[in-house]
């Protein structure tokens, strides 16, 4: 069935290509949209023709737009959040290129989560998508006063935090490894610093971030649950700017400026924490090491009006150590080279060459012996992405992506053990895709597409085949030979029907396939988590999601209300046997178990995007379950991230020109966990008896945060502001861990101990600009 749908879509795609050739009677208006002050290209700016209500286009990732129009006189309206709308009269008697520069609004009405146009959510077919405005997240209170992209997206419905002090997140019942996190197109395998307290994204270097909850267009692929697409700033091509921050936790500095005015620019941004400096001051912890640093760099160069090159890189590393005896360090390196080419005024091409590397090292030293564990995942990635602005009604996007993965699982070396040199396994992931945005009528928009993803095992390693946990045969793939190939078709469709100016309904279906899998020993994300590719036993994970949605303006159009319901079915989910040692076992595949999953839920979001009060209320009602052969007597059980209710309220209020206040409230049902049902005594020790997996609940989690910002008088030279924030206002001791142990005063009695991480965390920040 899936194959038939795919074929049908391909045919439509080919037709749109042909129609573009035949529709030569229209003219083309194309160009780019930029920020007037900095020259940064503006993503998702809306270009509209006032005289033709159905003609409009959204600028792409590089600010490019193209519109096919009949000959005539028009008023072009260009708009983007946070910018003054520009209206320009044009006379179109031949195809022309116009670059628009938008002026930033000088009022402080930035909103955190925004669609690019007031009525945008009503007309776009895309579902389950939210864009984070980086400039505005500084007003949302966060722990330690460090604004953080990953913490803010966790306040959206359908996105759940992996817990306090953890940047991991779960989208619509998926695992933390089922999110595709892209930084300038490069996959980031571990998006956390300091064991999860911070994300790898330095907000000063980030331009924009979009999260798509499962219904991503077919140019994205490789993960089941979501795509978090993070774009770095390009750098100011008008003027040199230095931004800096000095804090107790971290310091950061960014430099940006033009390489050639109006044409090319660069940005360099670095950050380092120094909690270890304080540790050094104490006698007890003076040998301990605890810090991270990261560096973002990007440059772009405009060769001519049709060609532009972008080079961007990220380098980050964490170091943690206890004296000479123990050390762990990990980090990501990513690099992207992109070449934008405007082939014609209707055809835009981007070619990307991407490198990504994640590795960790653990060092253990014990007197004369030492011991190291390390693991690495390396990707080399080539992508070509074409956008064809076929005609007023159709925009076609197609391309291919080929990734060479090299995955080296945990490798142990040292004086006391048998050092086994592991070269790692190679896998080749290929994809071709095609997606068409079709404006069928003034009211109906359809995005449909197809992705064909393939994963090929490559030579150089031995693959065991297991039956019931026992090796049944073994395949040795010679270097530079190819093994099994998995091929999957991923059809995707979303439709939007606009009932009137205030209401629209949406529906969508998407299949996502994942070829890389994360094996984690701990519930929280840990740097030593292992990635593994498909093999003869491990099959690609598959998720099918259907969703329906309704968007309407309410309360005199001051609020936007969005609701979406989804059902997701997951195949080839991976877990491992009870008591498995996934890090030391000689072949981790011998301890893996496979099964299925299902997730369904209802998400409600009420947003206020304008006025003195902005913010949103989000609520999610959901269920997430797994059924794995060999776990919980093969019955369905709650996934750990199954939380029935999840509420988040975010409000920002401008009291007057000087003061603004903001607050965040979150509530969620406790995680599904397994408490003991009983106990017994063996050899003088208390042991616990367990029944069904994850049948119990942690206590409910809730918290209120508050912050106030005071803007001082602006003078010509100096501008300062104070920010006061309090995390966990009413000091709730939210459970981080529940443990059962013998009462030290009466060993026959069992104590249930709740460990909480933070009670109150106040912070004060002073910012000034000159």
């Amino acid at each position, binding site marked *: 069935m899936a194959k038939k749908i795919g074929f049908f879509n391909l045919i439509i795609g080919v037709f749109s290509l042909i129609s573009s050739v035949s529709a030569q009677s229209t003219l083309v208006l194309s160009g780019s949209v930029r920020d007037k002050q900095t020259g940064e290209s503006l993503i998702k700016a809306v270009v509209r023709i006032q005289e033709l209500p159905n003609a409009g286009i959204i600028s792409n990732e590089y600010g490019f737009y193209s519109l096919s129009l009949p000959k005539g006189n028009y008023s072009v309206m260009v708009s983007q959040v946070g910018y003054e709308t520009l209206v320009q009269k044009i006379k179109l008697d031949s195809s022309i290129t116009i670059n628009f520069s938008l002026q930033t609004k000088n009022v402080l009405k930035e909103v955190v989560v925004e669609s690019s146009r007031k009525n945008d959510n009503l007309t776009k077919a895309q579902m389950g998508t939210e864009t984070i405005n980086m400039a505005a997240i500084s007003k949302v209170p966060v722990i330690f006063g460090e604004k953080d992209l990953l913490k803010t997206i966790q306040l959206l419905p359908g996105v759940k935090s*992996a817990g306090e002090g953890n940047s991991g997140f779960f989208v619509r019942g998926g695992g933390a490894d089922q999110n595709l996190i892209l930084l300038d197109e490069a996959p980031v395998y571990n998006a956390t610093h300091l064991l999860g307290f911070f994300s790898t994204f330095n907000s000063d270097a980030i331009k924009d971030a979009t999260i798509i909850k499962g219904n991503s267009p077919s140019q994205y692929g490789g993960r089941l649950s979501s795509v978090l697409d993070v774009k770095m700033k390009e750098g100011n091509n008008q003027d040199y700017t230095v931004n800096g*921050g000095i804090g107790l936790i971290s310091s950061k500095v960014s430099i940006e400026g033009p390489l050639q005015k109006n044409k090319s620019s660069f940005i360099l941004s670095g950050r380092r924490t120094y909690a270890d400096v304080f540790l050094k001051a104490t006698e007890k912890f003076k040998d301990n090491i605890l810090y991270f640093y990261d560096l973002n760099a990007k440059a772009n160069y405009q060769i001519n009006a049709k060609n532009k090159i972008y080079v961007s890189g990220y380098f980050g590393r964490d170091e943690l150590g206890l004296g000479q005896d123990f050390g762990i360090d990990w980090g990501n390196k990513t690099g992207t080279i992109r070449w934008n080419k405007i082939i014609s005024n209707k055809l835009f091409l981007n070619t990307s060459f991407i490198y990504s590397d994640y590795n960790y090292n653990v060092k253990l030293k014990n007197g004369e012996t030492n011991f190291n564990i390390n693991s690495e995942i390396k990707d080399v990635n080539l992508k070509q992405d074409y956008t064809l602005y076929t005609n007023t009604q159709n925009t076609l996007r197609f391309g291919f992506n080929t990734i060479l993965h090299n995955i080296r699982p945990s490798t142990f070396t040292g004086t006391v*053990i048998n050092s086994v040199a592991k070269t790692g396994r190679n896998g080749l992931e290929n994809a071709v895709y095609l997606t068409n945005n079709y404006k069928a009528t003034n009211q109906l928009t359809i995005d449909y597409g197809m992705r064909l993803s393939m994963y090929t095992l490559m030579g150089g390693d031995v693959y065991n085949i297991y039956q019931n946990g026992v090796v049944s045969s073994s395949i040795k793939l010679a270097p530079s030979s190819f093994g099994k190939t998995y091929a999957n078709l991923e059809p995707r469709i979303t439709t939007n029907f606009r009932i009137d100016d205030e209401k629209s309904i949406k529906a969508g279906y998407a299949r996502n396939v994942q070829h890389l899998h994360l094996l984690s020993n701990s519930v929280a994300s840990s740097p030593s988590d292992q990635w593994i590719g498909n093999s003869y036993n491990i099959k690609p994970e598959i998720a099918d999601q259907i969703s329906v949605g309704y968007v309407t303006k309410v309360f005199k159009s001051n609020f936007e209300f969005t609701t979406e319901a989804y059902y997701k079915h997951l195949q080839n989910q991976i877990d491992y046997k009870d008591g498995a040692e996934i890090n030391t076992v000689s072949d981790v595949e011998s301890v893996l178990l496979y099964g299925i999953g299902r997730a369904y839920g209802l998400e409600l979001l009420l947003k206020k995007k304008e006025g003195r009060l902005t913010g949103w209320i989000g609520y999610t009602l959901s269920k997430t379950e797994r059924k794995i052969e060999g776990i919980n007597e093969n019955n369905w059980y709650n996934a750990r991230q199954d939380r029935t209710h999840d509420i988040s309220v975010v409000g920002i209020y401008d009291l007057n020109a000087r003061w603004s206040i903001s607050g965040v409230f979150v509530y969620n049902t406790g995680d599904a966990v397994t408490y003991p049902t*009983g106990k017994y*005594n063996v050899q003088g020790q208390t*042991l616990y008896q*367990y029944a069904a997996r994850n049948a119990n609940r942690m206590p409910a989690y809730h918290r209120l945060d508050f912050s106030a910002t005071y803007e001082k008088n602006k003078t010509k030279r100096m501008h300062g502001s104070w920010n006061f924030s309090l995390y966990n206002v009413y000091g709730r001791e939210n459970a981080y861990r529940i443990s*059962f142990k013998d009462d030290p005063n009466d060993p026959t009695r069992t104590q249930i101990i709740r460990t909480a991480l933070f009670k109150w965390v106040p912070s004060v920040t002073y910012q000034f600009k000159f």
Partner: protein
Amino acid sequence: MKKILFIVVFFTIIFIGCDKEITLVLDDNKPVLVIDGSITDQAGPYFVQLSLSTTINNPTRINGVNNARVIITDQAGVKDSLQLVSNGLYKTQKIKGMEGGTYNLEVEVDQKKYTASATMPLKVNFDSLRINTFPFNGEIRYSVIPVYADPVTLGNSYRFIQKINDTIDPTFHVFNDNLNNGKVNQRPLRGGDDNLKIKPRDNVFVEMQCISNTSYTYYYSLNLQSGAGPGGGTAPSNPPSNIEGGALGIFSAHSVQRKTITIR
């Protein structure tokens, strides 16, 4: 350089939350039979302890099961009916434990049958104990290393019971040879319990058991049961064992060697 933006965080005070005892409403517990039996290469008798599990709120103690029929047979055809000593503790009469021997346990309680089979692995010589010191947060910590040469064949497992001046270390110390197959062991017994720090002049007693891989997984899983929640370990479950029929516990056949060292 027209614009310079500086952010100064003046102070951040963290009030760290702490551990607190709470009460929870827990699911009703179904009492389950617990079997803890072993055969060693030492002279008999050997013992099998039968008990019933209880609820979390009841006091922890051995609730002995006294109405069972307990039989151990070996591959030579010796059949031993165990005798009740007291409170669910049963004692062998004639069976003799030997390296390489396979033993079958059969327990019958209230018409329900439980079985287990265990083979005693070949003994690996316990050569000596040695002292290991390491600096930790500005002080010297001690641990002991059991010295033995792991055989070249893969798949050896060991359990160590450590006593510090007659106080039993509650950690289940189990080693396997996944990483150091065929090497002389240099891994110390590191206890997780801070109350059980080893100090100079302490006497440290270590019993080394050569155990089966099944027993290894059993004890290893018990160590993983470290609490629930984002800060806990993996989802805990009853440890996998060799007992068939729905009882908890383990039936182990292992060799025993003992050594003592005084910390200097």
